[in-house]
């Protein structure tokens, strides 16, 4: 039996999960909270003033256009090296996925709301969400939970090389060598570039000498 989803859901941005990622960035999952299926949507806060409220990245891989709205506080966006100051109530639309973007908070409580999707294609959930979601479990070395979150994401995207690679990382750290090797081999089979990453990734220290480790 499956539970019927409600017609609507409500949350305040302050009530969303707060998952520290890096460089002060705190991910406040919106899409995942509501199970939005038609577009990407998230919020970000920062652990301290000056910390990231948008991590440095491009959307070259996903091909997404993005809108960032400063919901509260203010932030400095750096877009392909050019600085843009945005106060609460302002937004920036970045049509070009190749633009390198990052934003730093100016004030406590600065909150950035992000929307994204790929023109001309139905939205699919980005793999990075599962990796971010697993971070708290990885930090507390709750390997069962971290592995469960990766498997949950792989149900929707069974052949996603980055997800398989990250699952292998977690399994290697958990001492599950056979699973780690199998998932790493599958990731490399799907995209050989992961072999190069694996060669220097300290997560794989426990399985690097195993037969079948990608070289």
């Amino acid at each position, binding site marked *: 039996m499956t539970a019927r989803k409600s017609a609507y859901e409500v949350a305040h*941005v302050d009530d969303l999960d707060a998952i520290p990622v890096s460089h002060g960035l705190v991910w406040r999952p919106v899409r995942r909270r509501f199970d939005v299926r038609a577009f990407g949507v998230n919020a970000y806060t920062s652990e301290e003033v000056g910390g990231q409220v948008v991590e440095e990245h491009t959307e070259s891989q996903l091909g997404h256009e993005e809108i960032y709205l400063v919901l509260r506080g203010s932030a400095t966006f750096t877009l392909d090296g050019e600085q843009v100051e945005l106060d609460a109530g302002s937004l920036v639309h970045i049509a070009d996925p190749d633009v390198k973007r990052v934003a730093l908070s100016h004030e406590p409580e600065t909150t950035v709301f992000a929307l994204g999707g790929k023109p*001309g294609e139905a939205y699919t959930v980005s793999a990075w969400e599962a990796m971010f979601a697993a971070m708290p479990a990885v930090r507390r070395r709750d390997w069962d939970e971290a592995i469960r979150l990766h498997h949950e994401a792989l149900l929707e995207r069974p052949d996603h090389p980055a997800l398989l690679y990250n699952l292998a990382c977690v399994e290697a750290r958990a001492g599950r060598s056979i699973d780690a090797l199998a998932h790493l081999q599958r990731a490399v089979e799907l995209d050989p570039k992961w072999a190069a990453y694996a060669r220097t990734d300290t997560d794989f220290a426990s399985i690097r000498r195993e037969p079948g480790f990608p070289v």
Partner: protein
Amino acid sequence: MSRSWTVVDLDTAEHRRGWIPLRELLDVKAFGVNAWSVENAGDPVIPEHDERQTGHEELYVVVRGHARFSVAGDDLDAPPGTIVFVRDPEARRGAVAVEPTTIVLSAGAKPSSAFTPSPWEWNARAFQRYQDGDYEAALIGFREGHERFPADSTLIYNLACMEARLGRRDEAIVHLRGAFELGATIDPLEDDDLASLRDDSEFVAIAREAGSRRERA
């Protein structure tokens, strides 16, 4: 060289009767996005509607001020930072400002489908021209929309209304007939925009047939 990003300040952006048409302004192609800005408490900030026609999921975030949402018959208090996600396209939803200067951002799209702008945008733009009393401009807008979305009954019906207003009887009759063939459910006898056609025998026949269809439905 043009920049590949655009900044919009929702506090100062030009709005059309409260609607800041972000998707159109920014040429967003991956999802629908708009902002809604009203000055007075008590003003409707999200017009009451459902998304049956588009099948869209919609997400609203209160950017400034304070709103009260009504979704599927439930009242929801929505201070700034509130996110309302309406999963069910059939759920009626709307919002009223409870503080002056209330701004709400909305985003929407249909799951498992590539986004395409909906006929609603063309209809809303032309309807505002109609509200301004500029029927010629409204006609152009509805015609553009009809040419882009020939299967949309609202656009062709509204096009017929403008043609009737402007005394273009023959075009109005053709488009009115087309609107009902596409499933329009409105009663044309009750529509003042069609007053110039009331004594026209073809109009009367169309109205009678539309009435029969409504009864059968």
